[in-house]
């Protein structure tokens, strides 16, 4: 296990290097933010001076090496617009993003597992078809549209919930519902397909032949075996949500990381985008690691040597 963790750590450093380099190249080839940064009163002479001061007139590999050198000292750069360390700006917003994501994952899983299990238990029934159709809608509906419809209904018409911002649980309801919509649909399909697969296997027939209760077969034997692929996808979804709940965070003015990413990409605030990519990569590494450990807990046959 220690060796496994050590290997993962080495991999992680490699991932950081590759990601930061790719992002850097992409950004430098896109262009620089000076046009958007300086006020209209500034002439083109000042644009050149600014490019020079920020080192943006150098080739990408020079800029990248400089970045690496200060990164080794723990400095991932300073935002062009906020004039604060980029990593601090990103991490400041992590708790808000996590709050949104954890609730979304809890609620999606809590709803999706029973729905999916029941559908698999009675394949091709009316209930099963209803769940499939509903999940198709959930997967296809664009996030933006769901968010706006929820706001129109619960905020403007019913005056039941706040439109946006962060605060009490009321502020969580709409953004979590918006994000959960797709996840519930996805998870229901995963659980259903996984269950159907497992239920057709020999050990389930054995269990039935032994005369076990159907409930025990489904929840104890079948569901547990379905959870392995489900955990993988849920982990990926969770990472994706923390980093890229961009649309939802914008609609509901949620003060999370996605909103910062959006505005930083629009304004070419490189240091934030790079710091963001690194934080995101770290998140995924941690989540994947957790998923691997969960595997071993769920399925005792899995061992890491």
């Amino acid at each position: 296990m220690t060796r496994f963790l050590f290997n993962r750590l080495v991999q992680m450093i490699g991932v950081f290097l590759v990601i930061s380099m790719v992002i850097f190249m992409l950004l430098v080839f896109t262009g620089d933010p000076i046009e958007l940064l300086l006020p209209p009163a500034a002439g083109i002479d000042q644009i050149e001076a600014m490019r020079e001061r920020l080192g943006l007139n150098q080739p990408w590999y020079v800029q990248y090496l400089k970045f690496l050198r200060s990164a080794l000292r723990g400095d991932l750069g300073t935002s062009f617009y906020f004039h604060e360390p980029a990593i601090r700006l990103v991490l400041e917003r992590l708790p808000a993003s996590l709050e949104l994501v954890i609730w979304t994952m809890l609620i999606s899983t809590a709803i999706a597992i029973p729905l999916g299990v029941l559908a698999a238990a009675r394949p091709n029934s009316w209930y099963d078809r209803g769940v499939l159709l509903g999940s198709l809608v959930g997967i296809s509906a664009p996030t933006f549209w769901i968010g706006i419809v929820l706001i129109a209904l619960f905020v403007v018409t019913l005056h039941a919930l706040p439109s946006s911002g962060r605060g009490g649980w009321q502020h969580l309801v709409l953004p979590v519902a918006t994000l959960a919509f797709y996840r519930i649909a996805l998870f229901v399909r995963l659980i259903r397909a996984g269950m159907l697969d497992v239920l057709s296997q020999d050990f389930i027939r054995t269990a039935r032949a032994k005369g076990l209760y159907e409930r025990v077969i489904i929840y104890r034997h079948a569901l547990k075996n379905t959870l392995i692929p489900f955990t993988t996808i849920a982990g990926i979804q969770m990472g994706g949500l923390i980093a890229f709940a961009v649309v939802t965070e914008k609609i509901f003015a949620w003060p999370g990381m996605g909103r910062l990413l959006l505005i930083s990409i629009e304004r070419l605030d490189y240091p934030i985008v790079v710091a963001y990519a690194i934080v995101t990569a770290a998140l995924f590494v941690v989540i994947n690691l957790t998923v691997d450990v969960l595997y071993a807990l769920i399925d005792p046959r899995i061992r890491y040597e």
Partner: protein
Amino acid sequence: MTSWITRPLVVAGVALALLAGIAPKNYAQGRPVIIAASGDAETMDPMLTAISTTGSVQRHMLEPLTDNDPDAKIIPMLAASWRAVDTLTWEFKLRSGVRFHNGEPFNAEAAKFSIERARDHPKSLQKAYVNLMKDVRAVDETTLRIITSDPSPDLVANIGAIFMLPPRYAREAGDEGLGRKPVGTGPYRFVEWVRDERVVLEANPNYWGPKPQATRVTIRPIPEGATRVAALLAGEVDVIEGIPIPDVPRVAKTRGFKVLRKQGPRLIFLAMDASRDRGGAHPQFSPGIPAGQPNPFKDVRVRQAFYSAINTKEIVEQVMGGAAAPAEQILPPFMYGYNPRVRRPSYDPSRAKRLLAEAGYPNGFTVRLDVPTDRYVNDREVGLALVGMLSRVGITVQLNGMPRAIYFPRMRVFDTSLQMSGWLTLISSINWTAMLGCVDPKTGYGRANYGRYCSAELNRIIDVLNTEMDEKKRLAAFYQVAEFTRQDVGKIPLYFEELIRGVKDGISMPVRVDEYVLAHEITFK
């Protein structure tokens, strides 16, 4: 009062107070107001930003020497009066008895400190406003003299961009402190700032000017326009900045709410490559014209033809939903130097065809039109409308839309033959200098001249705009540039975007052409 009346009131009050993030005890002091802005401030340091949503937040707490009224007219603020002593010297008389929120006195030393910080701070984004100010002198408590390196007729307007800071606090707090907690002379004092959630301000009890009616202000950044509208209609906020055009009729029709609108100063215009002779690969050739073909835009008749072929009225009505005004010239009518005699040519496709034939293009030609897709209101749709209009006179237009992060860096290196962009300043000479001055790193001209149009004659008149201290001669030069450009078509002005605000009934406030939304300008009915 009986409890069945008071209880709901108290509940409503507490709810409002919680929404605003304030303790109920402050509620009694006056009327609070919640403003939904389109974005949060990046920093509270006034010298390190050039973004209007940020300036708008800061302006509640910080004040400049000169200001502009809601219609861009220059008015006194912390400077009570000013005069040009000679062509290189300006003298400002400052208000006396004004104090910063921390008790520091506002005086000529503080003004000198603030101007020099804008000029000399390595990260300052405001150098453009003050770089001609060679020497700033505090003559006495209330007299400030500024010696410029060149004649600077726009100095009074430029200095309005610089917010005054208390020197002692600035030194003690450092950049970090100034960026997080601003101290100024303004009508509001800083209370708290929760990034991306809210900025809270309270009325400054010692304010030197008229006391604001809105005593407690919360500014909430809500980036999505549809959500801002929902927040207004649900009664969560009192004022919203920017209503998406499709939502305007809905807000106007809903009882209890009003839409405030005004023609803004942001010009949307077309620029044509006026420098390269042939089409082909960028940068040597003009990238939007088929390789080997001559560049038609070098011929003034082609530029005039494009001017006549574009029906701005139709764009304004059909694409912009009426939320724009056709541009007669580069400047909007409310700005200094607008020439009332210069009108845009009337929409006339047959004249356009005739001009194209005279220029040797009876069957038109093919060109790529570059537009941003996320920068201006309905920018992509306006691009589509232009494709249709130009096709009616035989021009085949390939529309090339790009997100702004890609668009502007490409425009900056002139990777375009025909492009649309917008421009906004409230200083008239900068508009001409940036849009039509010959691109030249020595003069700094041509910042927004992506077509690299260059006329030696026009450039000379633009020099006059930037240096002439005599009002009459200068105004004549402004009239002249507008007439010249109408004939030579260095740019095709299209329209000015409208500024749109939504407010609750009972709230009055001017719509400001500098795009600021200022709580101290609110009056309650």
